[in-house]
């Protein structure tokens, strides 16, 4: 019953899990992404955070940053939520579901950054919040245009050659995912060096880049 319309892009279907009209599926491609998201979620659950070394300017002193228990618990919760959203996002067969999960990834990413009690880091989290909220506009706009023009949200239908998706919807979808996946924006600012990284901050990059990978597949398949 469930056969991918475009097996020449991501390979033949391996398994599917129907939830009503939303059908999650595993192709060789989505399976690779899922396993990777699962691996890093497991690492976020099991790993203790790093103790970042900071060097004091003007002397030979250096010290390590300890993460408070409360902050670690919240970061871990956000990282796990982010991992779950990513796992669902890379396997979903519904475009609206995909945009919804991408937005959730964005929110979790903000949460991971915002849990650090540092004025500069919190300023940054606020800016990411604005960026992510702006990103939802093209993201959901793309889903709305796709629904309006094709009459369906199911990727199974949208991937068939008979269904044509406007280029503007594809472009908006990519812009939306880039807006939500803030990894390159985050690392380009100094605040990443103020907040201890592994394994929670790593989840920001894992989720951003995996959602980008999924949207590339969706765009090519449409």
């Amino acid at each position, binding site marked *: 019953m469930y056969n991918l319309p475009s097996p*020449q*892009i*991501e*390979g033949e279907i391996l398994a599917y899990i129907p939830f009503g009209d939303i059908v999650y599926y595993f192709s*060789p*491609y989505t399976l*690779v*992404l899922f396993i*990777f998201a699962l*691996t*890093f979620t497991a*690492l976020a659950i*099991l*790993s*203790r*955070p*790093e*103790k*970042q*070394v*900071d*060097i004091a300017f003007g002397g030979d002193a250096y010290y*390590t940053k300890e993460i408070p228990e409360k902050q670690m618990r919240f970061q871990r919760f956000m990282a796990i939520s982010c991992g779950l959203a990513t796992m669902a996002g890379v396997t979903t067969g519904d475009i609206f579901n995909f945009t919804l999960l991408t937005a959730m990834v964005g929110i979790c990413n903000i949460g991971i950054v915002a849990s650090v009690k540092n004025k500069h880091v919190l300023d940054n989290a606020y800016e990411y919040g604005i960026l992510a909220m702006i990103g939802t506009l093209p993201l959901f706009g793309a889903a709305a245009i796709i629904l309006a023009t094709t009459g369906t949200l199911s990727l199974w239908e949208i991937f068939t050659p008979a269904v044509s998706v406007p280029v503007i919807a594809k472009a908006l979808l990519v812009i939306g995912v880039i807006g939500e996946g803030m*990894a*390159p924006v*985050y*690392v*380009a600012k100094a605040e*990443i*060096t103020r907040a*201890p*990284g*592994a*394994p929670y*901050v*790593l989840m920001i*990059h*894992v989720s951003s*880049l995996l959602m*980008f*990978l999924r949207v*590339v*597949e969706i765009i*090519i398949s449409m």
Partner: protein
Amino acid sequence: MISFLLYLLLAVFIGLLYHGIHRKVIARIQTRPGPPVWQEFLHTLKFSFKQTWIPMTASQLMFVAIVVIMIAIWVGGLYVLLTGGSLLILFAIFLLHKITEHGLGLSSGSPYGKFGAIRSVISAASEIPLFATVGAIYMVTGSLMISDITAYEAANGPLLLSVIALPMAIAMYVIVLSKVPYNPFGIIEAKEIVSGNKTEHFGVWRAGLETGFAIKTFVLLAAFVTLFIGALPLWLLLIAMLIVLLTMSFICALTPMLSPYDAVTIQALIIGFVVVYVVIAGVIL
């Protein structure tokens, strides 16, 4: 299964050997004697038997797991290449490699590692779209399965000679170039940050990384040759890979390492060029 394991051993052997040849060629161009071509084997063996521990500041499980993940993804890449799987999966593996590069640096707690990790994501912002442009091969061949692409080339000639696919070859070449040692885009391992994201990984961990990087070099070079020249017998494939690597050795020897800003800018310009070309070609087609 046994044949895959043999290919895996070959990939490690050839990858390390090609790294050694790469270093030797760079040295000779710069009129230095350079190390022997088997230097990378010696490095890997030396690291395998050196004393090893995990820094106290590290996220310990992540510190070790990231090395295993690094090797695992490229073993997976080799499998995809040998079985003629989807080019999209190879693209995913390349991206996952960027994440492991990032994780390597972040997991140690070292500021040098962290700066290497930061640079790895900055470079990902330009390298990943660059690789994504290779998806435009789909426009030409109608498939992203490597087996279909090689079948297309057997029927229609190498993609390298196709005017439409040439910019994708350039994009892929820049990607492979940015992954060979001592390349101008190698900002994550620049010496001003010691060894960047690899700084704290020594001993067995470094030996594991060197093994993973050897497989990576083999997979990327083999993928480039297979995608743009076609399926070749093994001996011819190895020669073609070596020729591609030697062209890169010349670039590495004659080009200084770029600053992070310049590295991203140049790659972004190439992306812009390829995207414009693909859009124009798409309209004409």
